[in-house]
């Protein structure tokens, strides 16, 4: 029986997604029971030549975490696409650029340029899907460990079937809530009033059981894809939006902006509190700037 090969690559990110694979030890053992990891710079093998030498399509699944920041990221991800029968994009950075993409907020990055032997920077951070076709995705920053390992196993099972061209959305823990449910569907907090004054997190003693928006804290829940179990609001922290937009929504920030405007008191307009929102761009697009409509579209490759 032919060996089932798996590769994992962490591009521009924090390696949190890669480590999340290990945070579900039993699930990870299930993966290693059927597949062998041939390339994973973080843990086992960082020889790019080993990956390049493999025949095309010989990897069952290539897992890519992180957005594309450097020439090298681009090169390796294109390699992963060629060698892998299925490409799985994991985490907010791989899917929409994530926090590292906020470097592209105006005026953009003007720091020193990388010199040899460091790889050159790309003109902007790119999500994986803007460079190569992606077969499956797992959202999150980082993803829920069990959801990630289950998705890797599902992709391994699919690997020998002909490609369908359809993207397999991440498996979530609340299938009953449906694909289009938002984080609020799982949140135990209740809304009473509206947003009358914008506050920042350190200014507020967070009340339990009460919606963050009522307390003046921006919460990304109303526009963010559910399935995470609303763990952050449950722990007393507003949703930061790491699961990204609901499937079918193009621009996460625009949807969140609509959601916030809907609860904003009418007099919170220009002269009112609405005008005091600090870093609206960074808040609305915290994880999705690289895939948003407010940056110029990436040139098709």
């Amino acid at each position, binding site marked *: 029986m032919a060996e089932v090969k798996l590769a994992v690559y962490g591009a521009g990110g924090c390696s949190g997604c890669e480590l999340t694979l290990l945070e579900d030890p039993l699930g990870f053992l299930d993966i290693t029971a059927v597949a062998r990891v041939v390339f994973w710079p973080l843990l086992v093998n960082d020889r790019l030549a080993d990956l390049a030498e493999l025949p095309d399509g010989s990897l069952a699944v290539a897992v890519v975490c992180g957005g594309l920041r450097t020439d090298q990221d681009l090169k390796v991800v294109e390699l992963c696409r060629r060698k892998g029968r299925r490409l799985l994009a994991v985490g907010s950075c791989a899917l929409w650029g994530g926090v590292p993409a906020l470097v592209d*907020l*105006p*005026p953009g990055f003007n720091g020193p340029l990388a010199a040899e032997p460091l790889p050159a920077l790309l003109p902007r951070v790119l999500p994986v899907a803007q460079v190569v076709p992606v077969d499956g995705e797992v959202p999150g920053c980082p993803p829920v460990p069990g959801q990630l390992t289950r998705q890797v196993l599902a992709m391994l099972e699919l690997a020998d079937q002909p490609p369908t061209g359809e993207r397999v959305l991440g498996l979530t823990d609340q299938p009953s809530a449906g694909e289009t449910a938002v984080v609020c569907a799982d949140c135990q907090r209740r809304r009473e009033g509206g947003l009358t004054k914008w506050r920042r997190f350190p200014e507020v003693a967070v009340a339990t059981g009460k919606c963050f928006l009522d307390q003046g804290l921006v919460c990304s829940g109303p526009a963010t894809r559910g399935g995470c179990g609303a763990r952050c609001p449950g722990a007393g922290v507003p949703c930061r939006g790491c699961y990204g937009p609901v499937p079918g*929504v*193009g*621009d996460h*920030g*625009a*949807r969140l*902006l*609509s959601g*916030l*405007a*809907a609860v*904003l008191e*009418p007099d*919170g*307009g*220009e002269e009112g509190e*609405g*005008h005091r*929102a600090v*870093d*609206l*761009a960074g808040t*609305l697009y915290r994880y999705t700037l690289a895939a*948003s*409509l*407010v*940056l*110029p*579209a990436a040139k098709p490759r």
Partner: protein
Amino acid sequence: MGRIVGFFCRWCGYTAADLAGVARRPLPVELVVVRVPCTGRVDPELVLEALQQGAAGVLVVGCRRGDCHYVSGNLEAEKRFKLLRLLLCQLGMEGRFQLQLISPSEVERLVEAAWQMVFQLRQGMPGRG
């Protein structure tokens, strides 16, 4: 200069643009008008998409407060677009988006707002595109 996409409410902005034609008050050629049932329907995503695809500016025209045909669509739009303007300001794209609340008979105000936006953008507003 690129185009200016106008999302005009059919009950006020569009009627006013129509009246402008009747009164022989020219509107800028750069203005491309999209008739919408209500500005409450205009998703910010549509505005951002127009700007990303090369529109120089976007002008949304809705009814005056209290005049909405559907009671509160213009109020929702106002809240939403004030936030959007703030967002675009923070992104260095101020001047490329405007919301005007007018009544259907205010032809002059509409014509003036459209021309003013064209002049400002022709002078090269800050921002991309």
